[in-house]
């Protein structure tokens, strides 16, 4: 969430909202990223064991990511509305696991929920923390569509940069020296 790392609560569910998948968008996404016949051709898809067109798992996951980003922005607005300075979310280093459980068909509505299951300070990037997020997607029949364990970066509010890092950062601002330092690191 777009809270400071220190303020993020563990095991609290954040509803991310729902998305209804149309045949048009399923085909459009799959044409670019996963053009297997059961994702792009409604007629041929009938021959598959799915019995019809289904969304690429990568598509349902990308929509889940969008839902998470929208929730982060909404939280940012909420905190600003309360007169608070929101935290900063960073890019993700990866995904520990992703399980596709049930197919998504045209007209299906998928509801996404995020839970932060753990957090710790980053060892490699000073001033940032790692968040361990579980994102679960459920369809309109209550069946699980996918379950994922994701990792994300979040900025620390109370971080004090060590003196030697502050000196190094100041040195990177010196033209020639800065290039040498950034090449080394």
């Amino acid at each position, binding site marked *: 969430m777009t809270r400071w790392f220190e303020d993020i609560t563990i095991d609290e569910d954040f509803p991310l909202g729902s998305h209804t998948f149309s045949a048009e968008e399923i085909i459009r996404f799959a044409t*670019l*990223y*996963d*053009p*297997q*016949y*059961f994702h792009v051709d409604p007629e*041929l898809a009938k*021959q*598959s*064991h*799915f019995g019809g067109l*289904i969304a*690429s*798992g*990568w598509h349902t*996951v*990308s*929509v889940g*990511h*969008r839902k998470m*980003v929208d929730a982060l922005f909404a939280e940012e607005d909420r905190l600003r509305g309360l007169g608070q300075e929101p935290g900063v*979310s*960073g*890019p*993700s*280093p*990866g*995904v*520990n*696991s*992703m*399980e*596709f459980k049930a*197919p998504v068909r045209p007209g299906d509505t998928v509801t996404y929920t995020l839970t932060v299951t753990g957090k710790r300070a980053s060892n490699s*990037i000073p001033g*940032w923390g790692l968040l361990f997020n579980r994102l679960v997607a459920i369809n309109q029949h209550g069946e699980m569509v*996918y379950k994922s364990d994701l990792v994300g*970066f979040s900025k620390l509010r109370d971080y004090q940069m060590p003196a030697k890092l502050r000196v190094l950062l100041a040195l990177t601002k010196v033209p020639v020296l800065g290039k040498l330092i950034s090449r080394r690191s």
Partner: protein
Amino acid sequence: MTNPVTHDRRHFEDLAVGEVIDLGHTTVSKDMIITFAREFDPFPFHLDEEAAKTSLLGGLASSGWQTGGLSLKMLVDSFLSKIASCGGLGFNDLKWKTPVMVGDTIGGTVTIAELRRSSSHPQWGIVTMDFDVRNQKDKPVMTMRLANLVECRQAEVPA
């Protein structure tokens, strides 16, 4: 019952552990990055060059989900559309190692790591594949282990 779409394709029995699939190459344009980010990942560091410069990524870079999607597209073109694939089961240990910047060309290999019969569905096998996606400087961009279902020619395990 044979599937007319896939009966000419390679089946589970035709695959071997250690087989290496060449993914070919894809060049990632600014337009591709922004189009994907607008729909699926509208963080400023995927949409705006100025905002991206001061982010952890250091410049306009593709969404990790787009990098994965483009890698998947390359695997479909080079492999999954030529086997009797019946969908993905999921993936593990996906790591985004280096951001993909505007103009970068990504490619690499996928290696079959494991083949096993499905215990619940005798007509299916599971192929597990390791992705090694790299950029034009041969720097690792993304790795992951993907599991995909494949039709078997024969439902029973031969004695």
